[in-house]
């Protein structure tokens, strides 16, 4: 992969700056000011979420809400831990049992399911996106339109047929039953196809002429060049799988197998109403790994990788 030499730094920066002189002519500070203002507005719900998570449940839903928590407390989180009890983790089904608080167990379950699903979702959808973008084969148009059409159907409608199918396959209350239908989510194909079709075909041709195998072309050329789109797909997929709620709820029955969102839903709503303190605390906890994942994958937006490929 291209590395940025020190000598290349100034050039890099000018490459990365979009040469929109119209925009550069406005005072940079002014733009940043506006962007900052808009960003603050956008971030407000996130801030409020964490504030409420740290507010004692008895005084949560206050109007007007306290913007700075008066008595920040972790009692909501400890309450969630207390209520959910302890469970057992069967590590990779080897029989090696570890007892731990259920909240942690749910974290682990969700992390495992999400990372696994995200990795394969990105891989499979990249493969298919590449094929739809750069290769013509019989049925490609029809299949692609089917894929896009599938996105237009509201999920509520397919839930029950899907559940009946999973039951017949004997996959209820298993991770497989949760993961497989989730992997069938094809929105990545659409995004990656749109992106990959902008990649120059000469590169591919050149590589073929050089004798590279199809798989090598895919892994050595297409994937690196698509790093930004892959990163985007990964982030969106991670978010979808991490927050996925209704399907895992229907499929999973044992509390030791629950994902985070499923487990939390049992806790914050009771027969007599919703405990907003617990709801917010749960949502805050669930949001943290997402934030980490996002910042980790952000760096793939950097375009240095791309430029090297064209020049060389």
């Amino acid at each position, binding site marked *: 992969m291209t590395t940025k030499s020190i000598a290349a730094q100034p050039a890099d920066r000018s490459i*990365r700056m979009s040469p*929109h002189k119209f925009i550069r002519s406005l005072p940079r500070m002014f733009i940043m000011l506006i962007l900052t203002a808009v960003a603050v507005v956008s971030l407000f*719900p996130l801030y*409020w979420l964490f504030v409420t998570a740290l507010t004692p449940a008895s005084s949560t839903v206050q109007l*007007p809400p306290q913007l700075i928590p008066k008595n920040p407390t972790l009692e909501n989180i400890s309450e969630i831990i207390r209520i959910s009890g302890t469970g057992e983790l069967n590590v990779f089904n080897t029989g090696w049992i570890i007892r731990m608080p259920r909240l942690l167990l749910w974290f682990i379950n969700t992390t495992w399911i999400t990372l696994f699903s995200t990795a394969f979702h990105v891989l499979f959808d990249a493969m298919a996106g590449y094929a739809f973008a750069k290769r013509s084969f019989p049925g490609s148009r029809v299949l692609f339109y089917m894929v896009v059409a599938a996105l237009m159907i509201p999920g509520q409608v397919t839930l029950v047929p899907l559940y009946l199918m999973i039951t017949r396959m004997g996959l209820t209350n298993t991770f497989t039953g949760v993961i497989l239908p989730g992997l069938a989510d094809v929105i990545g194909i659409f995004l990656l196809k*749109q*992106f990959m079709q902008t990649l120059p075909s000469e590169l591919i041709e050149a590589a073929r002429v050089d004798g590279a195998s199809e798989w090598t072309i895919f892994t050595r050329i297409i994937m690196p060049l698509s790093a*930004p789109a892959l990163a985007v797909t990964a982030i969106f997929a991670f978010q979808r799988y991490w927050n996925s709620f209704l399907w895992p709820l229907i499929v999973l029955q044992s509390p030791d197998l629950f994902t985070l969102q499923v487990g939390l839903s049992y806790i914050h709503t009771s027969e007599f109403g919703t405990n907003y303190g617990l709801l917010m605390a749960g949502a805050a906890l669930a949001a943290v790994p997402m934030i980490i994942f996002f910042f980790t994958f952000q760096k793939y*937006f950097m375009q240095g990788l791309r430029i090297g490929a064209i020049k060389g």
Partner: protein
Amino acid sequence: MTTASSRIRPPLSQRLIRGWHKHKWSYFFIFPSMLLFFTFTAYPVGRAFLLAFQKVDLRGSEWAGLANFRDIFASQLFWASMQHTFIYAGCVVSAWLITSLLVAALIQPLPNKIQSLFRGAFYLPNVISIVVISLVWIWIFEPQFGFFNFLLGLLGQEPVRWLQNPRIALWSIVLSTILIVPGSGVVIYSAAIGSIPRDYYEAAEVEGANGLQKLIYITIPLLNPTTLYLMVIYTIAGFQIFERVYIMTGGGPINRTTTIVQLIYQTAFSDFNFGRASAQGLILFAIVAAFSFIQFRVLSSDIEY
């Protein structure tokens, strides 16, 4: 296909074998996702669509022809929710496309670290559940203690009943949606803009183009594939709007903010009338598909950099 009709066409088996050799890698690449897609998406969708023509309950299902559709079209609430959904989607899709493109373009010139910061700032709100966002907006719109009426009070204006007034409740919800920059659009446009090779801009500069011209003649056209993607996705999302509205107003007041997916959701999960819910889903699908068809026609092109 062969052009000269006088040529003897090779036997089917040979054509299949040649086709296989020619396309086997293509099929290999699409195989895993297509397998999953057909098993877990296409097949249930097909069954669901069949349900649209049946009456379904826990005992089983029986054929009902167009009965579900007749009931749906006879429902006044259905037409009202169509109207609300169209209004919402129309406003929101256009606003989102414009703001995300603008923000992404404005972020682009900035130094790396700051770019990351801003991208994060705009995307992060996406990671929290829609439940939380809706609750925040309920507070902001609250007639006695809410933030907006507080601001109005500072300006000496009367408080507005944002979500309580049947005439403006829908517009309040539209406002709440477009005031927040869509992080996904910013992120995607960022990725796409960053991929445009410098050469194009350099060539344009040589010709004496200024910033705005570069934006209009280079950036936007080259972003067509991305814009198509976002337009389709946002249209789908706009028409499928549900939780946000449901939490903020429950579809009221006086059913003036009911959306189509709310009806589907209630039909499916309160009435458990899956036949009718599937029919509603089919109608929604047809509408969105029609829009997407137009969008594909207009924006689809084989753009290569």
